């Protein structure tokens, strides 16, 4: 019996030894830095409105390795971003596939809380926006200032219960295919007929936002700020 116990003891000791060798996963430091900032209009210095889902992304490559792989961050709808779990170090970084002209990769050092703002030229500035409930309709009027040649593909008025409303996140959309170069003086008008859209419930509040999409591959719409309306 004693022998059996000893053998058991051995077994326990051996397995503990084996287990202890696996206990350290790695000896790298934890991500101890934060990276945050804004996407700013180079001309007006205002935040460039974005989509959080399927919108512009920030591509970043951590330097110091062979063949670093692209990682991506999303941007909040108001045009700001923040990542509180970043490894300290050098990064190549830029916004990609968004609603502004592509800018070059830049090398940054991230240490502690690091701010990095991107100055960009949005494809379209959505201006003079008015969104209001008129009778049983929600009516939006606005102008478009195109900053590049080419066509505007479509414009849209989007509605959703959450402030992250946009082209990808909407309960109801009133879209219009434009497919033409726009003029800054043209007033565009879009409306959502409330009784015809039963998914917008009377008495509840919804967020409405207008956007315009440039006809450039992979690009995302430009927006004005969302407006809260009780319908």
């Amino acid at each position, binding site marked *: 019996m004693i022998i059996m116990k000893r053998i058991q003891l051995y077994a326990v000791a051996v397995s503990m030894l084996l287990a202890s060798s696996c206990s350290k996963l790695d000896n790298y430091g934890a991500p101890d830095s934060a990276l945050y900032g804004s996407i700013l209009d180079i001309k007006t210095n205002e935040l460039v409105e974005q989509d959080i889902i399927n919108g512009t992304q920030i591509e970043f490559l951590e330097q110091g390795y062979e063949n670093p792989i692209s990682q991506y961050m999303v941007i909040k709808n108001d045009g700001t971003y923040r990542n509180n779990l970043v490894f300290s170090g050098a990064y190549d970084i830029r916004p990609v596939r968004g609603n502004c002209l592509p800018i070059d990769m830049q090398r940054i050092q991230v240490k502690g809380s690091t701010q990095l703002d991107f100055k960009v030229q949005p494809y379209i500035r959505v201006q003079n926006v008015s969104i209001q409930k008129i009778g049983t309709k929600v009516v939006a009027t606005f102008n478009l200032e195109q900053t590049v040649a080419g066509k505007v593909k479509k414009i849209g008025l989007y509605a959703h219960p959450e402030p992250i409303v946009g082209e990808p996140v909407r309960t109801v959309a009133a879209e219009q295919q434009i497919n033409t170069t726009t003029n800054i003086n043209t007033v565009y008008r879009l409306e959502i007929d409330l009784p*015809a*859209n039963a998914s917008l419930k009377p008495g509840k509040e919804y967020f409405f936002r207008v956007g315009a999409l440039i006809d450039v591959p992979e690009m995302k719409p430009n927006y004005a700020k969302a407006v809260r309306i009780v319908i």
Partner: protein
Amino acid sequence: MLQLMRKILLLCTVLILSAGCKKNFLDRRPTDKLDSKALFADPLVGTRVYMANLYGQLPIEDFRFYDRGWSYVEWMAPSVVTTAFLTDESIHSQWDVKLADGGTSWWEPGYKLIRDVNLLIDLLPELSMTEDNRKMIMSECSFIRAFAYFGLAKRYGGLPIIKTAQKYSNNVDELKVPRSTEKDTWDFVLSECDKAVESLPDVRSGDDKRRATKWAAYALKSRAALYAASIAKHWNKAPLSGEAVDKGLVGIPAAEANRYYDECIKAAAAIMNSGKYGLYKPTPASREEAANNYTTLFQDPNAAESGTAVEPIFIKGYAKVGEGHNYDLWYQPNQTSNGWANPGRMNPSLEFVDQYENYSTPGEAHPIVTTTDGDVNNYNGYDASRTYLRFDGPNDIFKDKDARLWGTAVLPGTTWKGKTIIIQGGYIQPDGVAKIETDANIVVNGTTYYTFGAANWTDYSGFNPSNLQMTRSGFSYKKFMQPALMPPVERNAITDWMEFRYAEVMLNFAEAAAESGASQAEGTKALNDLRRRAGHTVDIPLTIGSVLRERTVELAFENHRYWDLMRRRDFHTVFNNTSRRALVPVLDLRVTPAKYIFIRKTASKTVQITFLPKWYYVSIPGISANGLVQNPQY
């Protein structure tokens, strides 16, 4: 005692270790595998056995296929889901089936098949057989290799093209083959099809009748060429960017489109001019006959193999009950479940049914009109202020619809497997109150009416939201299903699958003609011959819209729609915050006798679906090891 124990332990250890040192241990032959010498002792028998294994690995998208590959469905039984749920063809009664990021992975099985066929190609010159046989088998290998590379190319774009079985020689880098451009990849697929055509036989018979003929190779070529042409022509609908695009690994220059359309037309024409193939029962006397013919064609493709007009070009046969598929279990209406616990999953959607033509308005999709105002874009549900059209029977509204709708879907109030299938979503009470998609009953003039058409849930097939086997689209499913009740046993259905059939070849031809402007007369004839088989008597002009609609309805649920949306870059337009739609038959008790009205609405408990353009390509696995350029945005 302790010492004895230690000695025994030591002895055991030494014994175990020494056993590992037996002479020639590494050279020992496995007892459960044959080497090539033994397998090919009789070269013809050996190649036949080896071929059977290769055919079994072909990426044929049949009853057991799902977007995540063939193996995905195995752990939860085949046919639980199909690509139809990922397209606008169908809604699942229980789940919102969505394309997962990338989906459709077939990388490793694909390259395993390619290695297996390359091994045979490398061995072939050494086998003793007649030159004719050697050529034939070489062509058959090309067919399999073309099929495999096609299966990979439509998922990943440009591929590493490996033409001989690789050998490992201590240098891993030698095994790393970079991706070819997408254009070169498709050209390789087409050239392999040409080699397959060279020496494959005209006909197969007896035990070999399921093996590829030269016509199967032509059919594969027409399908592949159409795929390549579509990418070249429609790339700009959803352009991507990045290293893979810059290097041409995905995307094909638009200037190549017409060359591929021409290849498609030539391959399809070879079959159409061969005199060997035709449509099954091409000139039905009535619409009912047309609907019947369409149903039976898929219930038993072998029946369509006799006579002068042979429709199947390449069949994947199912032989063994117990190793078949489960369409007949999962997809049949609730009322014919025959004891199976989870029927009713396949619910053809309203947006799909809307695609069918009406006989009275040939040449256009005809959305189902349910109200006097004719508004077919209102999906808000019942609205007392609108005037709904009233019908005597629950399927009168479909009377003028293309026969293939009747042959594909189980419509409300039609007979299926000896039962009248009841699909009803509610009623309007005599006082005007609507009870829809809720369990209720009411007595009117001494008769009890139930919202779902019957008192007991086993006696109806639709809309009860607390029951997962009820259709929520208003339609149930018929195509491919056996006409008799099936025992509620898994893998019991052994319906054969037509991977290539004549109708698809005609449609490939018609689409290539419509897109490229070539061969207009023949394209128009192919389109209208196909419509004639469906009971249409008025010819329509060849337009890209009419060809695509014809494809949607003729090839419905044959796993084509998914790839049509992919190759033509229509997926992200069709699915952009898109809701799934239903047609709800409702009994109107405000009139005597009661009549049926129909409500177009968003299907209950469904979500909006969006397709992201990067999903036009699947991500390549193992990039860090194989060193390949990844597809955009992965």
